[in-house]
């Protein structure tokens, strides 16, 4: 009774073995990655995928079997995402990020970096000079937070003791460092994410943090500890503050793209900027990890000012060279 069968049924019967073969390959790939597939299966995949896609468009016009159509629909979607999905492994991806994506994203956003630095150091300078003129400003900025006694009422000896450590209880200090890392990294991601609101909260966040550090700086400067405090701060601060400035820059990139999309639609513009800004924000997290290591161990173990300054200078030179030195275009 073969002649009596429905056309759509015959259509399906002739092809379903191939569909199921594709289904099997996809299930295998989804469960264990590409490594699980044999060479034969890898070679068959594109052919099976094209067959399934053409089966789907034919089935839509000749078949009313709901199950066949939804099956093909889901099969083709899965196959499409696999065939056109990301091929790189996580390791390759990381290398590409470190070698090319990250420095490139930062090198091409020099102006936003400068803008972000302007807000941060502007806040810093503002608080610094206000506090030098009148120490009461310090209380305005910090309210009732005593910052472990690092305030204008502290003695020079006490302040000096906060800068240099005798090597005891470093376990406590590494806990403190990781707490600071958490705070800073979360702050950096915030500065990036808030860029979406036209960058205004990002600017506020940068100025606010500049003010916090600038006013603290003034306390030490006022007591004649400016040189020592700079060493204490900058051994890890170069990396940390650079990361915060860059996170702000990432926020401004998004804010700028949303506010001034130019010739593109606002959505397309935000999308293009978002990719670049996210790369920078990811980099900031890496920089903050390095800063936390420097802070937790370097700062507590190294008590010589000269050594502190040379580490600070060294890290600054390293970051600038890494981000901004022109490099050969290596084809990847």
């Amino acid at each position: 009774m073969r002649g009596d069968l429905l056309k759509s049924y015959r259509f399906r019967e002739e092809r379903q073995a191939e569909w199921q073969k594709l289904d099997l390959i996809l299930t295998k790939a989804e469960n264990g990655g590409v490594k699980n597939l044999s060479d034969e299966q890898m070679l068959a995949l594109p052919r099976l995928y094209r067959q399934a896609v053409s089966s789907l468009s034919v089935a839509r016009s000749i078949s009313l079997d709901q199950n066949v159509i939804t099956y093909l629909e889901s099969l083709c979607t899965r196959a499409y995402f696999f065939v056109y999905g990301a091929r790189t492994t996580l390791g390759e991806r990381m290398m590409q990020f470190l070698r090319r994506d990250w420095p490139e994203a930062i090198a091409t956003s020099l102006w936003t970096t400068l803008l972000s630095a302007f807000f941060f150091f502007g806040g810093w300078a503002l608080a610094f000079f206000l506090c030098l003129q009148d120490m009461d400003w310090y209380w305005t900025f910090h309210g009732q937070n005593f910052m472990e006694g690092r305030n204008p009422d502290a003695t020079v000896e006490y302040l000096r003791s906060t800068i240099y450590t005798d090597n005891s209880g470093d376990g406590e200090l590494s806990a403190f460092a990781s707490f600071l890392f958490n705070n800073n990294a979360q702050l950096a991601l915030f500065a990036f994410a808030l860029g979406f609101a036209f960058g205004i909260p990002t600017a506020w966040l940068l100025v606010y943090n500049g003010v916090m550090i600038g006013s603290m700086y003034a306390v030490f400067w006022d007591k004649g500890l400016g040189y020592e405090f700079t060493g204490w701060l900058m051994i890890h601060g170069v990396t940390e503050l650079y990361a915060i400035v860059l996170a702000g820059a990432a926020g401004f990139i998004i804010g700028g793209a949303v506010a001034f999309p130019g010739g593109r639609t606002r959505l397309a513009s935000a999308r293009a900027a978002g990719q670049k800004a996210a790369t920078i924000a990811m980099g900031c997290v890496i920089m903050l990890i390095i800063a936390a290591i420097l802070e937790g161990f370097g700062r507590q173990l190294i008590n010589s000012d000269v050594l502190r300054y040379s580490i600070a200078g060294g890290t600054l030179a390293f970051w600038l060279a890494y981000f901004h030195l022109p490099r050969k275009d290596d084809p990847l």
Partner: protein
Amino acid sequence: MTPPPARPGISMEAAVQRRARMAEEMRNAKTMRRMVTPEGAAIQLKLGSASERAGAFMIDVAIQWAIVIATLLGLSFVSRVLNMGSSNIAFAFWLVFFFFVRNFYYIIFEIGQRAATPGKRILGLRVAARDGGRLTANSVLARNFIREIEVGLPFQFAMMGATDAMGGWLVLFGLVWSCVFLLFPVFNRDKMRVGDLIAGTWVIKTPKVRLMEDITSATSRPETGPPIVFTQQQAEAYGIHELHVLEDVLRQSTPAIKAQVAARIRAKIGWENVEGETDLAFLEAYYAALRRRLEQRMLLGERKADKYDTR
């Protein structure tokens, strides 16, 4: 305005039902997106609904908390057993670990082959690039770093309300402002989070469907007894919608429902029971006849949408 002239043969109740069904179909169509593959074939994608995504997020948060708490307990146990003196190093490690679980849990899963966190996988969702291209790692980073303001900010403002350090009004304003981000997916057509918008992604459904037996294959089996033959008029009593309902009935409902449906169809087409005919055999035969007729008409370019569609 005068009401449109009633079509013969449609009762008021049936017309209301039909309109409701069409409204439902329209709502469904709003969450469907067409994507054209490089081969030129169109694939229909269904967007994940806001509630499904919220559900997936809750599952993920629960998993994250489970990981974090389990690690905390494990670490405290280990440090007690080894008697490390100060548990500070363990705590420092845990804090950093907490940060990574909080921010990189989503990223690591979404960069992978399935582009979905466990929560999304359970609910049959995945992340995809809006333009149909490759989902890049940068997109995944962008959409997940933004989560910090979407969820973290309203949460922080809500917590702040308790301490009242900033003044009630300011906190309230902040809460309302940050809820704009939180509720963003509900108010746009593509159900995008702010993160999706920045990253150029959306979240779609990828249900796994099993290929089942064709119902018409049953009628060609020899053991079903004498073939049941319908006249053309009988085979044209229904449309595509009813065919699909019948398919669902045949595939998944109980014998009692099948008997009811069979009775209604028999009444509608004026069918006289043949000797020894079962409900199942009748329904399968009618399904085959109806599908054959409708598919023939479809080849000629006429889609009979439902039983009221008389052309």
